[in-house]
Every structure is written in C-alpha cells, then in structure tokens.
C-alpha cells in the first residue's frame, strides 16, 4: 500500500516534466515509423504473393505484429534509461531521499514504488504503441491472444529494463551517469545476442543465457514460454534485490 503512495508521487512528478512527454513522443514516432513501413512492406508483398503460391506463414501476425513487437522492444531499450535515470539519482541529489526514509516506509516499499511508477509510464507507452495493431484488428484479422501475449512479454521485458535502470540510478547522484550506465548495460545485454555465433562453443550457453532479447522472441511469436517467463521474472527480482542491497550498503558509508 505504501508502495502505491510512493509510486503516486513519482508518477506525478514524472508527468510534470517535459522529459516524460518527449520520451513518449520519440518512442511513439519511431515505433510508428516502423509500423507504417511494416504495413507498407506487407502490402507490397501481398501483391506478389497473389501471383506466387506457397509463401509460408504470410499473415499479418507474422509479418507485421511480430517484427513490430521486436522493434518496439529495441526502441524501449533506448528510452527506458531516460525514465529510470532520475528515480534515485534525483532524490539523492535533492536530498529528499534522506527525508523519504524518515517516514514510516521500508526501503523495499520505496524501491517497489519507484518500479510501479515506471511501470505506469511503460503501460501508457505500450497502450499508445498498441494503437497500430488495434487498427490492424479493424482492417484485418490478426490473432488476438498471441498479440496480447506479445504485449505482456514486452511489458515484462520493459520492467526488466527498468529494474536494471533503477538499480544503476541508485548507485549515483548524477542522472547523466545513471542514464549512460543503463544505456551501456542494456546495449551490452542486447549485443550479446549477436556474438553468440562467434564465441567458443563452451561459452555459447552463457552468452545465450545472458542476452536479454532472445528471451523475448517466444513472446513476440505469441507463445508464453515458461522458461522465458521465469527468466524475465528472475531478471526483475534480481535487480530489485540488487537495488535494495545498494541502498542498504550506502547507509553504512554514504
């Protein structure tokens, strides 16, 4: 309950700064661009598909929604650090963090509250992001449940990004440093997926395990895979735990 009160304040503050709107606008513009080009591509290919028989899986689900979700995930990776960078850094810089902890709340509630506020932002972003697919449902017949599963996965993935960003924000008073660190960390986790064919075989499994986006593949396909769900959830819990540890640790030395 207290976590919700903390979240309410963070959410209010977030939406009083131009940053949230700018981030939202950029995210929607870029993902919208991808959506439009995917639809255009689909249209072009559908003309050719009429002449040639036997193109497998030529559905809006496979050709539009799935790549759209994957692209949105990568775009979120770039914008979430901008939202999480202020969570703890700002409070520490202002000194309000000290005051916040003089109220009857636990560190856990504070961390969860901050995560909830970011989750609220992500929810709005994804809802607006889903306008394209919703239009698709009006003019075409994609499948509903796989699309919902895909969005669920995207939400969870974005929460994972946020948990990492919040943790890195708890390490520093400087928002720029916090954002850069989060960018760096998320990019590395993304790029890891690219080198998995290059690394020696014995490391392949480790690299596979660490790279974040492959765990979203199944969701994008519209499949809820238990392993990937567990992976994303533990990623989230791991970084919430690290944040708590970092807050606790700083109170010993400040």
């Amino acid at each position, binding site marked *: 309950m*207290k976590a919700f*009160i903390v979240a309410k*304040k963070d959410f*209010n503050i977030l939406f009083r700064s131009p940053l949230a709107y700018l981030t939202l606008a950029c995210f929607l513009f870029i993902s919208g661009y991808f959506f439009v080009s995917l639809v255009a591509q689909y249209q072009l290919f559908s003309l050719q598909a009429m002449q040639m028989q036997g193109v497998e899986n030529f559905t809006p689900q496979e050709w539009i929604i799935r790549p759209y979700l994957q692209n949105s995930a990568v775009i979120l990776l770039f914008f979430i650090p901008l939202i999480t960078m202020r969570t703890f850094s700002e409070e520490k810089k202002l000194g*309000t963090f*000290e*005051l916040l902890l*003089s109220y009857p*709340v636990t560190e856990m509630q504070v961390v969860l509250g901050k995560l909830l506020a970011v989750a609220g932002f992500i929810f709005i972003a994804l809802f607006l992001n889903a306008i394209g697919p919703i239009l698709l449902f009006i003019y075409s017949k994609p499948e509903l449940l796989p699309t919902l599963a895909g969005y669920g996965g995207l939400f969870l993935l974005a929460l994972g990004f946020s948990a990492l960003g919040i943790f890195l924000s708890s390490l520093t008073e400087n928002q720029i440093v916090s954002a850069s660190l989060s960018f760096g960390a998320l990019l590395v986790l993304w790029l890891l997926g690219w080198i998995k064919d290059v690394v020696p075989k014995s490391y392949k499994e480790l690299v596979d395990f660490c790279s974040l986006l492959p765990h979203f593949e199944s969701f994008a396909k519209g499949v809820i895979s238990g392993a990937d769900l567990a992976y994303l959830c533990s990623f989230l819990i791991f970084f919430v735990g690290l944040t708590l540890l970092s807050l606790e640790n700083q109170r010993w*030395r400040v």
Partner: protein
Amino acid sequence: MLKVQHLNLSYGSQQVLFDLNFSLNQGEILGFLGPNGAGKSSTMRILTGYLKPSSGQVLFLDKDISEDPIFLRKHLGYLPETAPLYPELKVAEYLSWVAELKGIVKNTSQEVDKVISECGLSKVKAKLIGYLSKGYRQRVGLAQALLGNPKLIILDEPTVGLDPAQVREIRDLIKKLGQEKTILLSTHILSEVELLCKRVIIINQGRILADEDLENLLKKVEKTLYVLLVAGEVDLEKLKLDLTNQCEIHKIYKVEDGHILEISPKTKNDIRSFVFDTVVKNNGILLEFYPKRSSLEEVFVKMIYRGEVH
C-alpha cells in the same frame, strides 16, 4: 526518550564522531551546538536512522533504532539541513502526500490544513514548491516534519538562510511547539540556542565538549562583571584608588557623557552599595550601573578554541 550510547562514526579512515553519549528527555528542547563541520548533521542522520554508526547504539523509547527503524519513523518529524523538497509538487499536494505516507488515515485534509495554518503557508498552498522563496520552503519543510503529531522532532539548522523576520517567525513557532513536544535542534547560531533551549550540547570535531543546562553553563564562565558609567567632576585617579579596595578594575575608557569602568569584585561580597557610595563620595554621578553577563558566545568560543571552560 532518546538515548545515545558510545556512538562512533568513521568515513573510511577518517573518524567523524568519537564516542558520543547523551540523552534527550521527554518534553525538552535540546540545542545541539557546534561550528560548521563539527559532526552535527552526521549525528542527526544517525539519530533518524538514515546513517548507520560504525559502533554504538541509539535507543528510542528503549528500542534500538537499528533493529526496528519503522517504530522510530512512525514517531519522528525530521527537517534535514537544506529542507529538501520536490520542486514539481504543489505545497498542499506535497503535504497531503506526506500525510498519506505517514499513515494519517483519518481527517487527512484537516491535519494538512492545520499544519498549513500553523506554519503560515495558507497564501502559497496552491503554488509549486519550486517557485517558493527560501523562507517559505523552510516552512514547508517544517510543516512536513510536524505532520502526524510526532513525538520527536529533529530540526537540522532550521533558520539557516532566512531573513531576520522569517528567523523570528520560525523561532516563535519552534518555541510554541516546544511546549508539548520533544525537540532536538541543531544550529551554529548562538542566540537561537539562548532563546529556545534549556539544555545545550556543544560539539566540536566529533566530540562532546559540554552537555549542560544553559544556565549552569553560563554561570561557569560568569565573573560577575559590572559596568558603570560615571559622569560629573570626578577625580578619576582618586576614584580608581578608592575602588581598588574591594574591586578589580579591568577597563576604563571615555565616552561622550562620562567614563565607563568595567569592574569585578575581589571577594565574594556584594560590592554594589560600596561602589555606589564610593562614586558619590568622589563627586561623581552614577548614570549607569549594571552587571555584564558573559554571553553564550564567550562560552562557545572559549570551548571551541581552548577546549575548556574554567
């Protein structure tokens, strides 16, 4: 109410607080006095549970605050040094948020209105905190500390950076609060302590130099200095000679309407009638005659720079 036992604090290899021991009693305003960098804010942060001491413990109502921090936080009102607030929120909005967070469920808006009027914030309650002047921000800081009727109020330099009128208002408010609450007030402004506190702790370089009632502390250094202003046709040399029978003369200097003498008794006897008679006998007119109190400032400076009062 609050007991501090053998408190040590080190930042890395640098020790900041050395074996602090003191206690704070119910219903008292305790002044925590020290020059900048003496360790006041660090101590405050430990007392609120924000900072963990390297060793030692703090007991609030006989409970160790490191074991049950939420118990302390439920009864604590805290104003940190810079009155940190969220500039994006409006005053009333911020205060009701704090009230919610402090777990005030019943009559939240009434509680908020109460502190708003107590701290004189009615005019600005619809304004964004970011647009407020320093004085108003300080008051908002004070208001959030008062919310939820806390048993213990810790104020870290509450009047720093305010103009004289604002300082007076805040002090009046603290004084009023002190009638029913327990307050720990840290400051480096001496007159504030003299005005507000009964007991004072002087701290320098992380060590407690004095922990006493203000009156006792002042008595310690008081030499009962008297100041006289003598006018008229006086033979100054003769007067001096006569006075030295029972007094020691520290200073003589001429002012517009006569001479000022600063004297102190040689023995413990009351010298007042003797002084009066002597001046009159020498054809002097005694225009002023008053004891000069040794102010807290003197005590403070002596303690900080010489380490001792005697």
